[in-house]
């Protein structure tokens, strides 16, 4: 089938359908160069159409959950205006209520966000950001904070009263924020592009401020689920597991990669064999062990069974094998011992692999569920993940509190994913693709 027939078929079948099956970078391949721009535009629109449709499928549960967190509890749903989502009860009705620390934190967060917007969006290029120390930009940041502080209070008050003026206060806040921000970067982006950026910033910041600082559901989820202690416990346990796994894996991997000892293949098989014994299989006997040792409801019981992993040892050994033997020989001649070679050369040289494994280990430790619920029987000692079940059971009528707690528990992982996206992806795909 000649290429242009395929193209015609694609267009005839509608813009969206065929591009699901399209290969990568179709618009850049040689075969499409001779085609009319109209067809290419349709192809491009189709590709974006498919991407947007798929993105909606992925995002739908997230968006719905956010809306649900911001909705009133069940019993208020049918009263009055049910789809006034954020009009539950507000803890802070003005910017200045809620204590000095809370006000200071809110102001600092908004100021930092605005400064970031001014630096990046205004400067345009990541490498050459616009200097913040220009009077226009400082004025934009300060004015943005003041506008948001004043108008967010009006939006909260109107939402609480379920007043018809609520959308107008939203509009006023968005326009006011956009105006202040346009002031800051009009010199770099004059005209409609600047206004578009300013408008997007206005929508995003207003939504963020109103939702994150206004909705009392976050603090209710936090207080009623006693999430502080659960998150603290999850944090401590995750850090301990991660550190233990990384250290034991590095040590064992070093022995396998750089030391000579008898029965090495056998010992390695002993390590890899543990992959056949997942926690689900050994659960009952491990709980018994922990019970006999008196470690029920203790951090030791949560950490110790995960203090070593075959996967980490394998991954880091692969990394160590990439260290050129010449380096080892040279360091030996220079009089470095094994430990000096390990910490000064082998570990720094395999840092990407170790970083990937560290993030994956932290992610796994934070998300644990089966083991904590088996060895914790006192709700005071629950980790965040198993606390969620308790909260959902207790707040069955308050969907907003339940999902708010779930979103709070997910937040650290979201931040981890944003900060270490590359390491996580490399770790997850370590077994899939060679290299």
């Amino acid at each position, binding site marked *: 089938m000649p290429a242009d027939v395929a193209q015609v078929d694609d267009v005839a079948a509608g813009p969206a359908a065929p591009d699901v099956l399209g290969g990568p970078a179709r618009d850049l391949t*040689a075969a499409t160069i001779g085609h009319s721009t109209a067809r290419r535009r349709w192809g*491009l629109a189709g590709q974006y159409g498919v991407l947007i449709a798929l*993105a909606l499928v992925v995002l739908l549960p997230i968006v719905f959950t956010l809306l649900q967190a911001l909705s009133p509890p069940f019993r208020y749903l049918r009263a009055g205006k049910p789809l006034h989502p954020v009009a539950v009860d507000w803890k802070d009705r003005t910017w200045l209520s809620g204590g000095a620390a809370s006000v200071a934190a809110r102001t600092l967060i908004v100021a930092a966000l605005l400064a970031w917007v001014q630096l990046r969006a205004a400067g345009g290029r990541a490498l050459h950001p616009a200097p913040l120390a220009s009077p226009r930009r400082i004025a934009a940041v300060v004015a943005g904070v003041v506008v948001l502080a004043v108008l967010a209070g009006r939006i909260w008050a109107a939402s609480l009263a379920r007043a018809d003026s609520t959308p107008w206060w939203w509009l006023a806040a968005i326009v006011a924020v956009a105006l202040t921000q346009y002031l800051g970067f009009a010199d770099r982006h004059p005209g409609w592009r600047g206004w578009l950026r300013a408008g997007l910033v206005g929508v995003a910041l207003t939504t963020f401020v109103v939702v994150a600082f206004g909705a009392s559901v976050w603090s209710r989820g936090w207080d009623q689920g006693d999430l502080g202690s659960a998150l603290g416990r999850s944090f401590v346990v995750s850090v301990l597991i991660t550190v233990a796994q990384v250290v034991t894996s590095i040590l064992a991997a070093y022995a396998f990669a750089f030391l000579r000892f008898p029965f090495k293949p056998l010992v390695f098989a002993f390590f890899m064999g*543990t992959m056949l014994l997942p926690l689900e*299989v050994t659960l009952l*006997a491990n709980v018994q062990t922990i019970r006999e040792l008196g470690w029920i409801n203790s951090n030791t019981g949560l950490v110790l069974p995960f203090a070593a992993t075959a996967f980490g040892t394998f991954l880091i050994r692969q990394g160590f094998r990439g260290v050129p033997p010449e380096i080892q020989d040279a360091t030996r001649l220079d009089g470095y011992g094994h430990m000096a070679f390990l910490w000064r050369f082998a570990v720094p040289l395999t840092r990407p692999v170790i970083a990937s494994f560290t993030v994956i280990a932290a992610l796994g430790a934070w998300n644990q569920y089966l083991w904590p619920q088996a060895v914790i029987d006192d709700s005071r000692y629950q980790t965040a993940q198993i606390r969620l079940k308790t909260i*959902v059971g207790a707040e069955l009528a308050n969907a907003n509190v339940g999902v708010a707690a*779930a979103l709070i528990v997910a937040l650290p992982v979201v931040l981890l994913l944003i900060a270490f996206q590359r390491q996580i992806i490399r770790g997850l*795909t370590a077994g899939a693709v060679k290299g």
Partner: protein
Amino acid sequence: MNRSSRRRYSPRELGLAALLLAPSIAVFVAFFYRPFLNLAYWGTFESRRNGAYFERVGLAQYREELASDDFREGLWHSVQFVLYTVPPGLILGVLLAVSAHRRLRGIKVFQAIFSSTLASSVAVTSVVFLYLFNPQVGLIATDWLNDPGMAMFAVSLSSIWQNMGLAFVIVLAGLQAVPDEVMEAATLDGYGAARRLLRITIPLISPVLLFLLVVLVIHGLQAFAQIDIITGGGPVGATETMVFKINRLNRPDNIGIGAVYSVGLFFITLAVTAMQFVILERRVHYAR
């Protein structure tokens, strides 16, 4: 290795190796091998009521319990869960990755969105879907969670959504490893989009798809949190999978049966993992 290096082991190196391996070996013995051997042994004892009464029954208990309706039911529910979650996981993974593997403006945004479900733990996802299925306020306001025929399907929807990020990331990594020239050559040869996908893309990334298949099957067999949170095993035990039943038997008076179930789960996992090794073997040959 050259011959000259095959001298006797130096005692210092031996000592160091023992020292470095000791922490891992201690954990593996204490929490992997010893508990498994214990379970295999406990499976030959019948336990009653308060756990004080143990009677040695030998392999009879294995024969009896592995053939029992309860075990078969758990196995069937696990298989059901795998059947519901794995094929959609593979299809969605390919769909997302093929759509997002292009040079377009803003493609990074879409890639970030597609991998975003990685940030959601099983427990968080389960809470989200528990309310999603709520008959009063849910988006999918149905009575599925009270319908024995639909409850497992509802639970697996949460896992399908959660696995999307992982499947996308793995398939995309596979696609990125395929040289661009192969695709361009196929396009120049006049392959249409559908033929290109079925005849070239999928065969080229088949090792990655097999890897994903095994990962998804193992995840499916080990599913627990989503069932514990969304249905609690109900309605009328319709979502009690293997791991759920094992966890429920976590009491001294049931330890004998629980041990038999655990050993059963081990052999099922072993079969899947053996498949994985065969696949890895194939991948190595393929890459040559």
